[in-house]
């Protein structure tokens, strides 16, 4: 019941209304009917007043009900089929699901290779992959080519940084725990990759304001593969990029990326690279 209807109709007024008294002023009838619409207690009192005071109306209501009931009963409400809750679509689009599944698959393969033996020397594949893996999901989160509903989404009120961030958060929320779990057996500590991972994600979003999130994510992944992953795999030595000494640099990159994203937040509302 609503807060505003703390004052209720008087017993006299409800009684007069039930009897269909023509003496009630029109504005009073209006006010009473408006109140009855929102106040269940007064409706109950009205129905009681009708039953006790106005047998003619009461019997009419009973007749109408008995006439209606047979036709009301057969229309049982249909059970809708299993529904996809709106909150799920609000965080993840169906397009992102295969990419996230692929990400998990890649983590498992990297873990298996790490555990299989020291084929790659000192380097852990899980560690090398961890910072870039969420980018796959981020790429699919706001992509013109991959998302069939992109045009509809881009024109909706909720489009923009808000939606991009929401989808990015759900990617991180799914990928980071998988990486944490995989990091245990692989002997990789989260401290080494979590900050680079967040920094790269924010960099992808920041660059995405200018060239599109998908292009930015794919570009960063390519850079990472060539610049960070390839050298240790070739030389079979630890990567310096993921040392604890380089963490301040990653922190700086994260702050920079976040700053750019906030400063350029308006750029996410229109289609990136309008000049296609």
């Amino acid at each position, binding site marked *: 019941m609503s807060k505003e209807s703390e004052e209720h109709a008087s017993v006299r007024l409800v009684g007069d209304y039930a009897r269909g008294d023509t003496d009630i002023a029109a504005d009073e009838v209006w006010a009473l009917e408006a109140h009855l619409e929102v106040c269940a207690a007064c409706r109950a009192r009205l129905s009681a007043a009708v039953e006790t005071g106005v047998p003619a109306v009461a019997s009419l209501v009973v007749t109408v009900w008995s006439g209606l009931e047979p036709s009301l009963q057969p229309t049982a409400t249909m059970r809708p089929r299993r529904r996809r809750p709106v909150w799920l679509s609000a965080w993840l689009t169906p397009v992102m699901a295969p990419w996230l599944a692929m990400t998990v698959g890649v983590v498992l393969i990297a873990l298996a290779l790490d555990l299989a033996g020291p084929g790659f020397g000192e380097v852990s594949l899980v560690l090398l992959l961890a910072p870039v893996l969420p980018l796959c999901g981020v790429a699919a989160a706001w992509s013109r080519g991959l998302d069939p509903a992109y045009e509809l989404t881009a024109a909706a*009120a909720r489009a923009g940084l808000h939606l991009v961030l929401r989808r990015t958060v759900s990617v991180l929320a799914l990928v980071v725990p998988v990486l944490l779990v995989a990091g245990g057996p692989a002997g990789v500590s989260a401290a080494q990759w979590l900050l680079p991972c967040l920094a790269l994600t924010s960099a992808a979003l920041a660059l995405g304001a200018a060239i599109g999130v998908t292009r930015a994510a794919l570009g960063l992944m390519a850079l990472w593969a060539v610049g960070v992953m390839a050298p240790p795999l070739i030389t079979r030595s630890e990567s310096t990029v993921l040392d604890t000494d380089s963490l301040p640099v990653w922190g700086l990159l994260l702050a920079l990326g976040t700053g750019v994203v906030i400063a350029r937040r308006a750029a996410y509302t229109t289609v990136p690279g*309008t000049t296609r």
Partner: protein
Amino acid sequence: MTRAVSAAELRPRTYTHAIRAAGLRIRVGRTRTAVDGLDLSLGTGVHGLLGPNGAGKTTLIRALATVLRPTEGTLELFGESVASVGGHRAVRRRIGYLPQEFGYYKRFTVREFVEYMAWLKEVPKADVPAAVQRAVERVGLADRADERMKALSGGMVRRAGIAQALVNDPEVLLLDEPTVGLDPTQRMRFRDLLQELGTDTCVVVSTHLVEDVAAACTDVVLFAEGRLVFQGTPDEMAAAGNADHPGDSPLERGYSALLADPAAGCAQERGAW
């Protein structure tokens, strides 16, 4: 308890036309100017956006939907400029948009799809189920609402697209080629729906079918090579042609006459408006 009439609906309008463009120029790609110096004012009613292929209809509609940013000129929706970046959110809540090539998630049911779009359009959470049901009923898909989108025929998919455009009760409704794939019965129902919507909404329908315009539109906007060729009622467009011009109906003859000789249309437009 919801009120029958909200305060927002009783608020006086602060604009004369829901859509107003002045000197609008939109560049697509590096060099091509799809909309080139357009002056256009559209109010309540059904406006048929006609023009040959590549006239810039889709680009104009995308700009009206605030997806594309105008390169030059002013574009006002509900009296507010949308040329600036950002601040589109409040405007977009009042727009319904059906893109020409409209994509959707195949595994969603019609209801899930329209519900998701209602969420994206920030329809208040409590109103969503009723709004979705109403939109689905309006396009005649109520009996298929719980089927997956991939199980629907092309015409039904398009109707689902129209339903998602209607779900937020838009004040400006932009439909890009909405009648493609509809069978004749559906097309007639759709025209009735358009006429009903046109009584209180600014509906812009892009089409290349002249008969759609004759049947449902209160106003024709003829568009060629990014410029406005003619704006007026369907009768005025029919009057522009004579028996010498190619076409099977008066409207088609008027269409070809105006496209062949744009100057005549502009002169008439000045006189009529």
